[in-house]
């Protein structure tokens, strides 16, 4: 009976109350360590990144090429997929200019995360990455971009073997 209730439970506390010790809290910092197996499809993806190219998978039944690779097609639920090398160029599908880091630190130069539709994959099939060497204000949907790779020696089979994507020059 929303209208009849005058005293709603729940007690707000302020940082000052906690700092003064009026409210007690027990701190805890977890230390949890994991080792994630890359599996079958993503292992091939990471090996391709180490070798300097992007890898996708094609489902012949759905006639669809996707990235990142997966060991099965989630549409027709078949394992009959083929690994196909793709280009390291693409088109910005959407982007943000983010002024906050993952752990909520404010930054003045924005990070520019983007979903990039990769050339050679089916329409609309993108990956998450960052844009670089670009005026943040000039980024827009439809921008053509290319991967900027780390040097061969420093690549280790990770998505960060691509430093970022930058606008394709002179086009």
């Amino acid at each position: 009976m929303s209208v009849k209730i005058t005293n709603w439970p729940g007690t707000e506390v302020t940082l000052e109350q906690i700092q003064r010790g009026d409210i007690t809290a027990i701190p805890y910092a977890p230390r949890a360590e994991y080792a994630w197996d890359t599996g079958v499809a993503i292992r091939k993806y990471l090996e391709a990144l180490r070798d300097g190219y992007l890898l996708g998978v094609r489902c012949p039944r759905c006639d669809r090429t996707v990235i990142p690779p997966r060991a099965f097609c989630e549409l027709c639920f078949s394992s009959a997929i083929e690994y196909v090398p793709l280009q390291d160029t693409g088109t910005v599908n959407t982007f943000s200019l983010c002024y906050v880091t993952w752990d909520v630190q404010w930054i003045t130069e924005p990070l520019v995360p983007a979903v990039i539709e990769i050339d050679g994959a089916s329409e609309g099939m993108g990956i998450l990455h960052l844009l670089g060497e670009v005026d943040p204000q000039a980024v827009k949907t439809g921008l053509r971009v290319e991967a900027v790779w780390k040097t061969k020696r420093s690549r280790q089979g990770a998505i960060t073997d691509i430093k970022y994507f930058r606008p394709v020059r002179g086009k």
Partner: protein
Amino acid sequence: MRDVAVIGAGMTKFVRRAQETPKELAFHAARMALDSCGLDIKDIDCVIHGTAPDAFDGMHMKGEYLLDGSGGFGKPYLRCYVGGGTGVFAPICAWYHLASGKFDTALVVCEEKMSSCQPHPQAAFISIFDHTTERPLLPNLLWIFALEQQRYMARYGLTVRDIAPVSVKNKRNALDHPCAQLGADLTVDDILASPLVAWPVHRLMVSPTSDGAAAVVMAAEPKAQRISDQPVWMQGVGWCLASSYWTNRDLYYPAYVEQAAWMAYKMAGVTEPRKQINIAEPYDPFAYKELHHLEGLQLAPKGKAPELLAQGVFNRDGDLPACPSGGLLGVGNPIAAAGMMKICELFWQMRGEAGKRQVPGTPERGVAQAWGDLMQVGTVTVMGTKKPHG
């Protein structure tokens, strides 16, 4: 299948940081829901609990931890979880417990205490991203909302100014909610003057992190009518998840919300949602999400929700009030509890008990919706004053 109704509701205040533990918050909401319909815990056959990521609490088996505060001791008990969609999924779980005939009464409790995660609960969200292909890029939750809003705006040629009025409306509605964390009387210019956190998202277009709990009591026929002279019936339920390969989906439109909505509408006999739904509580963790979801819920044509918003259609006194509660943007966003707050709001609105928030006329049918996981789940309930099967 038996008809199922909501017969009682309760909630705590939503606050940035609550002194109460999760168990205590859950208890207060559950106790209020029971008291509101004159039941005691011995009258409850089963308990459904909804709470979102364990990472906020730093506690594994959070459902079990919350059991006693939720009234689950010695009873069939289920903790359900579909990320942000949990608060509307919990009453759906209760619905099938009751509709099946297995139980007659259910207590449904949703709780979230985000403030335990230090220094800011935002950091807990990095673990929702793929550990190998995305997490090394150090993503945060703002990214996916910003990417989705930008895609939505680009598709329809919308501006941030078209979207900001959602924050104005919901924060203003929340001024009338006794449990609200962020009720405020602001202008569109105020929203746009707030810091840009991640283009195109300004700070006042983001719901806060909150602590709080909300609960309902549900019952199947004929017990529902015996206990309550004003049951609010669950007329339709729907839920659906899209692929977690979210960069392979076009983010401009939540097709999975549409699928869940039609599942619920079909069950409720709703064929023309815009005519047959009187009141809506779409999920609004970010300002654009309310518009996105109104479109997914078929309550606005694709790309046209901002236009209807500008015309005042979604105001509390408009043709289709949306988030008359104040929503997540105004009341607050203790994740699972925020979705359940929407169920409570429909319950109170359709019984004419919403006080200063009461929408004009007597709404006969409403829809509540929540959303979450990696932008991939839609949970929808249609509630109404009429019993579905006479």
